[in-house]
């Protein structure tokens, strides 16, 4: 019997992973813990150089990957208002401001317009770092306005989803964004303008149950979590362990909800191909 007893369970991080490194120089894979220089990691499309794990990246990282050089950012002046005066542990206003300070963004989605292989494309990409990529009125409105731009310019639409679902702090208004975005997509469909929906890790809740699943082409990055209910909620409801790989992109492909899975390094190339097919 040892002299010391471990009182807290689960402290098993090996010492070599505990080293503090300054931000911006090194990247440690969140999955396999492999360390690489940030430069190598970025050049590898923000994927782990060893296991290929796709790290979560922000809207502007995607814009840089997709567009031929420059792009215009649209509607970036839209911000949420605390219309309901929603207060839990902190007020909604404070949450927004905190999220802004952390990310430099004003809401969980950014819209860009530019050229991909010399052809126009409008992209609305979500940021998980802004209140869990949650969908409130601003997300809904930016998608609605993106659709309007696509209708006007006859440009295809790409939405890159990355969201925990609807934003509770806007209650029914956030719920109605599901209807609003779906309604706007019917206009795009009627005009026969293609809509590509890229689901990235994670895409759940009200976002999956509205615009994310409504693409003419639904596709995803490898191993992304995609679902309606979150895994924890399901586990609590059914009181059973979830099967291996449940709600992964591969699982959704197998069950018929995705057209294909694409490695991030091939994203631009695949978009160019798709835009060529749809003309």
């Amino acid at each position, binding site marked *: 019997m040892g002299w010391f007893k471990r009182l807290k369970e689960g402290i098993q991080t090996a010492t070599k992973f505990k080293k503090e490194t300054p931000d911006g120089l090194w990247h440690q894979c969140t999955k396999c813990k492999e360390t690489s220089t940030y430069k190598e990691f970025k050049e590898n499309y923000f994927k782990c150089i060893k296991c290929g794990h796709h790290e979560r990246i922000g809207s502007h990282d995607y814009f840089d990957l997709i567009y031929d050089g420059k792009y215009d950012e649209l509607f970036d*002046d*839209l*911000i*949420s*208002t605390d*219309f*309901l005066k*929603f*207060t*839990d*542990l902190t007020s909604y206003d404070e949450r927004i*401001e905190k999220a*802004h*300070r*952390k990310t*430099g963004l004003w809401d969980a989605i950014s819209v860009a317009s530019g050229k991909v292989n010399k052809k126009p494309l409008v992209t609305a990409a979500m940021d998980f770092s802004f209140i869990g990529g949650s969908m*409130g*009125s*601003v997300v*809904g*409105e930016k998608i*609605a306005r993106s659709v309007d731009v696509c209708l006007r310019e006859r440009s295809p639409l790409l939405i890159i989803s990355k969201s925990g679902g*609807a*934003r*509770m702090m*806007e*209650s*029914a*208004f956030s*719920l*109605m*964004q*599901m*209807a*609003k975005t*779906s*309604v*706007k*997509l*019917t*206009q795009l*469909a009627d005009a026969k303008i293609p809509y590509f929906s890229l689901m990235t890790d994670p895409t759940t809740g*009200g976002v999956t*149950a*509205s615009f*994310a*699943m*409504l693409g003419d082409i639904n596709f995803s990055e490898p191993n992304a979590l995609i*679902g*309606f*209910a979150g895994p924890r909620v*399901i586990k609590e*409801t*059914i009181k*059973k362990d979830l099967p291996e790989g*449940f*709600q992964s992109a591969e699982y959704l492909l197998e*069950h*018929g*909800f995705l057209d294909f899975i694409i490695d991030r390094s091939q994203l631009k190339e695949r978009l160019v191909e798709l835009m060529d097919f749809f003309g």
Partner: protein
Amino acid sequence: MVFLDFEKPLESLYEQLDKIKQVAEQGDVDVSATIQEIENKIKAKKKEIYTNLTGWQRVQLSRHPERPYTLYYISQICKKFIELHGDRNIGDDKAIVGGLAKINGDTLMIIGHQKGINTKMRQYRNFGMANPEGYRKALRLMKMAEKFGFPIVCFIDTPGAYPGIEAEERGQAEAIARNLFEMVKLRVPVICYIIGEGASGGALGIGVGDRVFMLENSWYSVISPENCSTILWRTWDYKEQAAEALKLTADHMLEFGLIDEIVKEPLGGAHTDPETMAKALKKHIKKELTALIEMTPEERISARIEKYSNMGHFTARPPETEIEPTVQEES
């Protein structure tokens, strides 16, 4: 009778009333004056309780075990009803029912969530939580209604779409998304009533229409108060606060312009006088459909698009509110 916690003052009054009525049956003592007095007290107490309900109390009423559900209303409202089953693919979901109905000689398609009326039936109906095949059955019936020009009436009453393994496997999210998309484009009139619980995507999945109404003691929200409390406060105990914060009552929803009208319930809730409630609903449905039928399908569809496109609250940021991002700050 089942009394909710905030209805307890009524329970003792009703007990007194019962006792006095028993006395009246046994002897020759004239107690009519006392009965009258107690009935007046009950009336006054009811008014006091039900005119100032909190959000959480409305949630409790919407879940009252005696509250009427879709099939009850159908049985009261329609001369004839044939239930139609199945999504033609996986099976028949018991949490959403639907079928052909006759009201005043006109054929309608009525679709709604259905909860069970006792323990066994509650399980059979999966507590009103539909699986993807429920939403797909609903869509099949709506498409049929569109084909034959039957107006559609939806009754919404669900604690949410079912979060289970099979539901995910069969595409719960896709089924709901598809319904939102398709309901916008239906060429026939669509009216929706929240008759009890309107929780999140599971409610909206059959809730996009020309007009959306709420019964007085129903609620509509992106999440149930309990789940909201669990996520934001990390415990169920703040459900009352969550119910207030979510502003989920019919009054709020009307004030926000997210619904079109509130349908009044009998004092004390729909369950205290279900027949009157059903009559009021029937009258309301007739009135609304008569107005909608006047419009052309194109007018209705473009009005629907307009209505949903305008939902949301945001503002344009004035340039001076620019705050320098401090990226290093701890999250």
